[in-house]
């Protein structure tokens, strides 16, 4: 379904709007602005409406377990609240977001007035595998005063439109600032029409999606990429605590290794296969214990995939310098000398690979712009040098295992403030 001007429309009717999208947008531009306080108020009202009785079943139906659904719901409620949004804006822009900055530049006689303004029109191309991501991308666009065109991912579950519908009921002005088109990605002509009035295309996705958008967008359209990222843990020293390992296990089980900041695998500061094997033997019961405490919803399709992957790994292991350690609900593939940074098989199947610190930089530099979070477990006196080396590889966050996928108000994403990317700085210079 498509959602345009506050109305749900079928494909046929939506085409009529698509054809006059530029005119509609110009009309809004000409006569209106979207004050940030109206968006914050609408989000805050929505936040107050979110409750366990009505909304927990929705998350459970998406396959989350009860405690995960509960924590996610509370997080969304928090993230839409007035206090959170105001603090987030303050964190990203400082105090001058809704006002302006006036100053006399160094070496100049004139007075310059400086303000944040929306980029204008954003086309959001969201990842199809993350529930509610499309609507959060749009909300960020709204907070920054932009007109938002959203191309829904092919596998959308209706959550994004439901949330936007509620927001426009609360604040009717938003209906002119959010256009949702539910077209297949293969409908390139329509996507080009969506991109035509856009000042920027916001693309969430893997390298293929980013490359396709770069290829499609006109040279005068800015591309804001939230591209593919990969995260891992780095462990130095064998005398680490079970608590540290439980933190990593928690991240693996909590996120099922699906997020850009999920731990895909663990590098060990060693050259010795024996250390890798010993570590894997030690970590397996810790991971299994955590997995048992955070059960996955039974899904034969997923289980079948895991079984095929693991069976193949086992068949390959004797001749390829690796060994698979399996337990009831998870597995670890231990590698002898391969230190490639790869995605895991997900769903609680991680790899353990040797990566001595002297090779850290040379081995990871080739993943430039793909690295995100590293959980660092090491002796305190090693920490500063390992942190410095990890940041040189391109990592943008160093955390404990447990904090890999947790966020905080005003956190940068992939090394940048997201809202700032949707705005520009304008100056008045008379």
């Amino acid at each position, binding site marked *: 379904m498509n959602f345009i001007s506050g109305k749900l429309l079928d494909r046929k009717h939506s085409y009529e709007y698509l054809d006059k999208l530029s005119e509609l947008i110009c009309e809004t531009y000409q006569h209106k602005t979207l004050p940030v306080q109206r968006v914050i108020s609408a989000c805050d009202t929505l936040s107050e409406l979110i409750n366990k009785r009505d909304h927990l079943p929705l998350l459970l139906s*998406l*396959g989350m377990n009860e405690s995960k659904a509960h924590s*996610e719901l509370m*997080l*969304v409620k928090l*993230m839409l609240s007035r206090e959170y949004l105001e603090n987030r804006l303050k964190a990203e822009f400082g105090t001058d977001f809704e006002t302006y900055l006036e100053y006399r530049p160094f070496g100049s006689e004139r007075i310059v007035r400086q303000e944040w303004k929306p980029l204008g029109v954003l086309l959001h*191309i969201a*990842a*199809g*595998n*993350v*529930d*509610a*991501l499309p609507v*959060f991308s749009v909300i960020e666009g709204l907070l920054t005063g932009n007109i938002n065109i959203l191309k829904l991912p*092919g*596998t959308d*579950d209706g959550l994004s439109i439901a949330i936007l519908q509620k927001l426009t009921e609360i604040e009717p002005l938003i209906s002119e600032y959010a256009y949702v088109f539910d077209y297949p*990605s*293969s409908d*390139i002509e329509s*996507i080009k029409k969506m991109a035509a009035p856009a000042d920027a295309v916001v693309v*969430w*996705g*893997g*390298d*293929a*999606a980013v490359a*396709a*958008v770069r290829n499609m967008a006109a040279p005068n359209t800015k591309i804001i990429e*939230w*591209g*593919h*990222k990969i995260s891992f843990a780095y462990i130095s020293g064998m005398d680490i605590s079970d608590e540290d390992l439980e933190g990593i296990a928690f991240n693996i089980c909590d996120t099922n290794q*699906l*997020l*850009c*900041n999920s731990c895909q695998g663990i590098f060990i500061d060693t050259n010795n296969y024996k250390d890798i094997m010993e570590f894997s033997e030690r970590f397996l019961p810790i991971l299994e214990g955590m997995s048992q405490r955070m059960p996955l919803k039974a*899904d*034969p*399709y*997923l*289980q*079948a*995939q895991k*079984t*095929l*992957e693991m*069976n*193949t790994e086992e*068949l*390959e292991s*004797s*001749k390829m310098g690796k060994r698979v350690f399996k337990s009831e609900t998870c597995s670890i593939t231990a590698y002898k000398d391969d230190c490639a940074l790869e*995605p895991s098989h997900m769903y609680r199947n991680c790899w353990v690979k040797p990566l001595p610190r002297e090779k850290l930089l040379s081995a990871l530099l080739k993943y430039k712009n793909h690295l995100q979070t590293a959980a660092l477990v090491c002796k305190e006196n090693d920490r500063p040098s390992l942190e410095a080396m990890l940041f040189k590889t391109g990592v943008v966050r160093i955390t404990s295992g447990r904090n890999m996928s*947790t*966020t905080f108000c005003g*956190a940068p*994403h992939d090394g940048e403030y*997201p809202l700032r990317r949707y705005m520009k700085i304008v100056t008045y210079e008379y």
Partner: protein
Amino acid sequence: MNPKRRLFLMKNPYDLEKSRAFFLDAVKADLEYHRTNCADYAEILKEQNFDINTVKTENDLYRIPVIPTLYFKRNRLFSIPEEKLVIKAASSGTQGLRSIVGFDKSTLVCGILMMLRFLSYHRLISPLPTNYIVLGFQPSSHTQMGAIKTAYGITKFAPALHREYALKDNGSGYSLNIDGIKNALLKYAKSGFPVRFVGFPPYMYFLVKALKDNGISLKLNRHSKVLLGGGWKQFSAEEIDKEDFYQLIEETLGIKKANCLEFFSAVEHPLPYCKCENGHFHVPVYSRVIIRDVNTLKPVSNRQLGLLSFVSPLVSSMPLLSIVTDDLAVLHDGSQCGCKIKTPYFELHGRAGVQQIKTCTADAAELLGGTLNQAAPGLLVESNAAVHPGGERI
């Protein structure tokens, strides 16, 4: 005559009882052949402590170490020198990984014998000159995709007057040949010879839908046929009710449902499975189907969901003797079908991986797709990025 040759020469491809006299022996001989001629396969058997003496009846076939089709996408496993392969094929690799398989002369001979028997049984071998619409790729020197070879092979079973391809080789790649198909269809309708449509179901659906939308209704020769195979892949969202589909075919082309046949096969298991009049894939004598538990890969009983796995001694160039696909399926007793074929039949229930509505396949094949593993920090997320491990259907 050796048991393998006798198996593939059987006149009735569904005479299961008769095949029992040679099936097990053929499998055992095949296993020993691969053990002797493929060192990696011998290693796999050894690693799993496999003892051939534990395979006493067909009920023990599951004990033969089973290899996932994913393994063939990442590893080469041949029992003859690669230069002796007479034909090579690759899976269509929707997910980027392809299996490369190769067949030798002896496999090809058995395969041709099998196909002749099988297609005769399904009345697909015809002496009538026939025009073809191939709803897929034109064969070319720059591709080895198994689906292309299968589609082309099928055009050999009735003498071809002309072949028109939906995706035409332009020297370096493929381009969509809409006008060519349209003109060929009109020409074929006028000529009066039978027409055979061969290829992927979604393309057939798009074709008949386009005919219907344009008000075109043809009356093709009554011996015309629609031969479909390959599943719906990235078009799964478009999968429509089968009855509506067949009705649309009859309305636009004048081909009755009885002349529309759907096949199942895989590059790693190049045997034919054809849907019967009740829409069931019965297992021919050349193989045995084992549905395996999604955790343990042990066999499950009939009517239980599990991974679709095959045992067949057809291929001598590669140890494809016991393989498990990434299709989930259920096996039924043949007597439950009601058609004249009495062998067990399987029903496909989607592919291993994430929930069916949210597989990445859909977007991956599209221009703006790709396997996505991405989320905003701390947003409400539960993602479904996955790479399918198994065999592509051809």
